[in-house]
C-alpha cells in the first residue's frame, strides 16, 4: 500500500496520459482551446460509468447580477463543483482535457522539437533597481553611507593630526621664529599650517621663547608622540566630516526590457483554398501562435485575409473565411507593412507568417512580394504552402520565395501536404530563427 505504489501503478496502467503534442497538432481537436489556453484531449485512463449524455442533460446556471433571457447563449457547462474544501467523496467531474497555458506548451514543444528559442528583449519597459553597488557623491540623505563618511573623516583626522605640544616646544627654540619652525615642520612632514604656528607662537610667553638653544637640543629633549598614542591618551573628541567625504549609495539601474512580440498571420482565402487546405493552415499557424505567446511576455496578433485584396480580420474569422476571388499575395504584405508601422522593429519582435497554396498572380511574387519581405524587418518571415494534392503547376510562390530569399536567414519556406507534415513544418519554421540551417523540404 502507499501513495508511491498507487501512483506508479497509475502510470503503468494508463496509456500516455494525453495525446502527445505531435498527435494533437496533427489530428487533435484544436477547437477546445483558446489563444491563452491550450486544451489537449486526455486519453481517458479513467474508468467508465453509467452517465447521462451531456447534451441531453442541460443544466442550471446562476446569473451574475440579473437573470438572463431564454434564448441567450451560455458558455459550455462547467464541471458542477466549485469544490475546494474537503467533503471527501468521489468526484464526478471527468477532466477530458489536459489544460496547459502557452508557456507550458512552448516548453513542451521545445522539448519535443529539440528547440530552444530565446525571446529577445526589445523595448525598455522599466528600469529596475538592482543591488546597491553604485556610489555617487550626492544623493538623498537616506542613502548616505555613514560608515564611509566616518572612515574618511577619521583618516583625514589622522592624517591632519599633529602633536601640538611638540610644535609648541619647537617654537621655544631660540632664534627660530614661526617661519623657520614652519619650514622645519614641513620637512618633518608634520601637517601643521603656518597660521596655526603663528598663532601658537604669539601665545607663547616671551620668557619661554628661548627655552631651547637649538634644534638639536630640542630634538634631544622632546619626543614626538604618535597620533595613536595621542588618541589613546586624549580620546577622540571629534572626527571632522567633510562634504567631500560624503558618499551616497544607489541601486544599480538595470534596464528591464520587455520581451514582446507581434505576429502577423496572413492567409490566402481565395477560391482555391478549400476545406482541407484551410485545416492544414490552421494546424500549422495555431501552435505557432501559442508557442510565441508562451515564449514572450507580451504578444499581439494581427490576422490578414487576402485574395486579390487584403483586409484585417478577427481571429475567429481568420481560419473560416473563404472568398471567391483571385490571388495577389503582395496585397497582404502591403497591409502587413502598414500594420507594422505601429510596431517598430527596435521595440518589437516581429513574426510574419503567411500561408496559402502558392498560387499568385503572375510576377507578383518576384516583383512585389520578395522586395516587400526584404523591406519588412522581422525576426522571421515564413511561408507555409498547403498543397494536399502535391504541387500544382502554376503554384510557384513558395519556390520563388525560397530561391530568392532562402539564404536570408530569417525566411522560412515549408510545405504541408498532409496532417503528418504539420509538426515538421512547425519545426522548420521555428528552427530557422533558432539558428539552425533552414532545410527546405
Amino acid at each position, binding site marked *: *500500500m*502507499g*501513495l508511491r*505504489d*498507487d*501512483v*506508479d*501503478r*497509475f*502510470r*503503468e*496502467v*494508463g496509456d500516455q496520459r494525453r495525446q502527445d503534442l505531435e498527435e494533437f497538432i496533427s489530428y487533435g481537436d484544436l477547437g477546445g482551446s483558446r489563444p491563452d489556453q491550450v486544451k489537449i484531449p486526455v486519453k481517458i*485512463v*479513467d*474508468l*467508465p*460509468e*453509467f*452517465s*447521462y*449524455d*451531456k447534451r*441531453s*442533460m*442541460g*443544466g*442550471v*446556471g*446562476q446569473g*451574475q447580477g*440579473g*437573470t*438572463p*433571457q*431564454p*434564448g*441567450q*447563449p*451560455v*458558455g*459550455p*457547462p*462547467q*464541471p*458542477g*463543483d*466549485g*469544490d*475546494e*474544501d*474537503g*467533503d*471527501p*467523496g*468521489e*468526484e*464526478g467531474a471527468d*477532466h477530458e482535457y489536459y*489544460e496547459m497555458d502557452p508557456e507550458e506548451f512552448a516548453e513542451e514543444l521545445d522539448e519535443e522539437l529539440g528547440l530552444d528559442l530565446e525571446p529577445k528583449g526589445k523595448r525598455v519597459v522599466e528600469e529596475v533597481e538592482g543591488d546597491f553597488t553604485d556610489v555617487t557623491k550626492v544623493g538623498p540623505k537616506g542613502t548616505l553611507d555613514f560608515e564611509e563618511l566616518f572612515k574618511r573623516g577619521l583618516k583625514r583626522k589622522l592624517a591632519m593630526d599633529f602633536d601640538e605640544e611638540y610644535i609648541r616646544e619647537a617654537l621655544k627654540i631660540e632664534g627660530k621664529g614661526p617661519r623657520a619652525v614652519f619650514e622645519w615642520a614641513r620637512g618633518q612632514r608634520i601637517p601643521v599650517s603656518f597660521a596655526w604656528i603663528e598663532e601658537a607662537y604669539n601665545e607663547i610667553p616671551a620668557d619661554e621663547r628661548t627655552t631651547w638653544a637649538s634644534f638639536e637640543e630640542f630634538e634631544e629633549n622632546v619626543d614626538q608622540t604618535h597620533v595613536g598614542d595621542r588618541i589613546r591618551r586624549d580620546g577622540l573628541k571629534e572626527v571632522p566630516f567633510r562634504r567631500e567625504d560624503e558618499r551616497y549609495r544607489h541601486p544599480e539601474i538595470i534596464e528591464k526590457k520587455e520581451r514582446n512580440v507581434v505576429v502577423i498571420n496572413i492567409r490566402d482565402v481565395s477560391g482555391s483554398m478549400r476545406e482541407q487546405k484551410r485545416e492544414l493552415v490552421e494546424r500549422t499557424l495555431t501552435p505557432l501562435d501559442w508557442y510565441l505567446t508562451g515564449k514572450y511576455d507580451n504578444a499581439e496578433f494581427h490576422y490578414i485575409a487576402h485574395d486579390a485584396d487584403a483586409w484585417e480580420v478577427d481571429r475567429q474569422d481568420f481560419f473560416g473565411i473563404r472568398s471567391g476571388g483571385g490571388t495577389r499575395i503582395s496585397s497582404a504584405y502591403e497591409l502587413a507593412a502598414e500594420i507594422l508601422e505601429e510596431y517598430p522593429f527596435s521595440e518589437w519582435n516581429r513574426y510574419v507568417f503567411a500561408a496559402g497554396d502558392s498560387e499568385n498572380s503572375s510576377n507578383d511574387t518576384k516583383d512585389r512580394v520578395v522586395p516587400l519581405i526584404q523591406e519588412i524587418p522581422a525576426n522571421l518571415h515564413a511561408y507555409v504552402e498547403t498543397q494536399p494534392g502535391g504541387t500544382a503547376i502554376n503554384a510557384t510562390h513558395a519556390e520563388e520565395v525560397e530561391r530568392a530569399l532562402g539564404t536570408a536567414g530569417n525566411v522560412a519556406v515549408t510545405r504541408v501536404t498532409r496532417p503528418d507534415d504539420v509538426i515538421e513544418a512547425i519545426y522548420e519554421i521555428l528552427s530557422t530563427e533558432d539558428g539552425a540551417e533552414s532545410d527546405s523540404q
Partner: protein
Amino acid sequence: MKDERLDARRIAAGLDESVSEAANLARKLGLDPYPVNYWIVDHDEMNELIAYSGFQDRYPHWRWGMAYDRQQKKDQFGMGKAFEIVNNDNPSHAFLQESNTMADQKAVITHVEAHADFFANNSWFGLYSDRGSAGTDPDAAAMLERHGEAISRYMDDSDIERTEVERLIDAVLCIEDTIDQHRPLAAADIDDEDHDIDDITDKLDQLGLSEDVRQQVFDEEWLEDRAEADEAAGIDDPRLDVIAFLRDHGKRFDPEAGKAVDREEWETDVIERLREESYYFAAQKMTKVMNEGWAAYWESLMMGDERFAGTDEFITYADHQARVLGSPGLNPYKLGKELWDHLENTTNRKEVADKLLRVEGVTWRNFGDAVDFETVASLLAPDPTIGGIGTDRLDELTELAEEGDPRVDADAVERAIATRDGELDPEDPEAVDADRYPWKLLTYEGLAERHFSLAKRQNRGFLKGIDRSELEQLARYMFDDEKYASVEEAIADVDYTAGWDRMREVRESHNDVTFIDEFLTGEFVLHNNYFTYEYSHAGSEYRVASTAAEDVKRKLLLQFTNFGKPSIAVYDGNFANRGELLLGHRYNGVALDIGEAKDVLERVFDLWGRPVNLMTIRTEYDDHELEVARRRGREPEGTEVGVRLRYDGDQHAEFDLEPELKNAIEASEVDYDTKPDEWLA
C-alpha cells in the same frame, strides 16, 4: 491516530484555543458535532489526503494515483487549493493546510465543526452508522483500513494474480453507484421474494398432497428450478442494488473453458467490501449541497456575525469567503448556503407574521398596510444588552440573570464578573473573557435573538415580501387572533429560535433531493438569478432555456437524484432463459451516454460471466427532419426508440426493445427537458 505515511502533526498550540472555543460556540448555537481531531499537513500531504478521500489507508489501486496526479496538477495551477478536509467518522479527523493564515484556520475550524455536526445528525449518514453491531458510529477509518489490508493480502497471495484482483476492483468501481442508497446496507441485501427452498417446501406441505404426488410432480429438480426462477428479478420488481445482485448470482467467465464458472471466494469478498464502501460514501454524495451549505452557513455566522475571527482577521476572512463562494458555475456551497438562508428567513418570517396576525386590527388582508415594517424591524433587533456584550455591560447582564432571563447564561456571567474584578485568574479555565468571547454569556435563546436573521440588514425587506396567500393560510386556522393589543406586544413574544430549530430538524431529515424539492421556491429562484440551459441543435450551443422556478428545480433535481447519474437496475437474471443479465436504464427523459454505457457493460461482463444486456431509450432523428429543422433554425423533433445493448464478452450488438420492456423502463411522470416550446416551433 496511526499514521505511517503522513507526517501529520497535531495542531500548534496557537490553534488549540480556537479549536476548543469553536467547539464550545458550536454547541452553544445548538449544534452537536462529533468530536474532531485536528491535524496540520503540508501541500503534498493535503493533496494525498484529498486523493484518498480523507483517509490514509485504502486498498491499493491506481485510481488513488490518478486522483493524486490530478489534484497535484490542479494545485499547481492554483485551482485546487483546499483549505481543509474532514472525514465522516467518530471521532472525526480534520486536516488543515499548513499554509493557511490564522484567519483561514479559524474559518476552517468553524466550518469543520458544522460538518461534524452534519455527519453526526443527518439520518442518511445514520443509515450507514446505525449498523447495529458497530453501535451508532461509522467506524469508517477502521473499516476502510480492514478492507485495505484484506485486499492487499489477496494481491500478495501467490495463488492469486494481482492483475485479476485489480481487474475485479476496476469492474466494481464502474458500477459503484448502482446501489440502493435509500436503504441501509443490510436491508438492501434482503430480497423481497422468498426463494428459500424450505419456504417452498412448507407451502407444499400446506397443500396437503400425498407423498406420491409430491414426489412425482414436485420433485427435487422442480423445486430447484422454482427456486432459481424466483431468484431471477422480475420485470415488475427491478433490483436497485446491482452490485449485490452480481455478488450473489454472478459468475466468472473462464476463457479456457469457454464458459462461465463459479467465482472464487476472494472475489465475492472483494465485491462485498467495495459495496460496503459505496454505501458508506453514499450519504456524502447524497447530501453534498446541504452539507456544504450547512458548513458555510455556520462558518459565516461564527466568523462574521459572532466575530470569532477577531477584528483584525476579519478582512482576511472576507477574502476567504469570497474565494470559496465566488467560483463560477453551479457552486454547491453557494446553492446550499442560499437555501439554508432562505429556509431560515422563511421560517422566521412565518413566526413573525403569525404573531403580527394576532394583533388586534391586523388581518391577512390589511397586513401590508396595517403593519409598520420599520417599527417591526427595529423591534426585532436584538436587545442592546444581548446584541452588544462586553466587559463594560456585565452588570446589566447580571441584572437580567437575576431576573431569570432565559437568554443569559447566569453562571457564565458570574464567572465573567469574577474575571473582570480579578478574582479569577484569566488563565484559569473557568475564567470568561467577555470581550473576546461575548457569546459565552448567552444561552441558545440569547444567541438566537442576537443573530435573528430578519433583523439583519440584508434581510430587511424579507418580511414585507410575504406572499398574500401564505398570510391567508396562516390566518385561516388561527383561533386566537386578537391576542395582542399592539405590535410591540406581539414582537415581544416572537420565538427567535424558530429558524434555527427548523434548520436543525431539516438537517436531520433531508437529503439534497428532498431539500431542494421542498425549499427551492419561486421567490428563491428569482432572488438568486437561477436559470436552466439546454443544448440547442439549431445553434450548436448551449442556451438559456427557462427561468421558471419549477424548471430550475427539476433541472437541479436531475443533477442530484441518484448522484446525478441515470438509475440502472437489474430486471432479469435469466434473460432469454440463457442466464443472461438484463439491466435497465430507468428512463426519465434524459438520454444515456451510450458510448460510456457500452464500456461499462464490458466490465459488467467480468462480474457476470455470461452475456449482459442493457435496455435504454434513445431519441432518433430521421435525416429529413434534421434537414428541415436546420433550414428553419429550430430544434429537430425525434422519436423515442427503445434499444437493447448487448455484450457477449467479445462483441457489442444492438437490438430493438419489445414494447412491454420499453414500458417497463419508461417513467412517465417527470420530464426533465426544459426546452421552451419556441425552440421547437
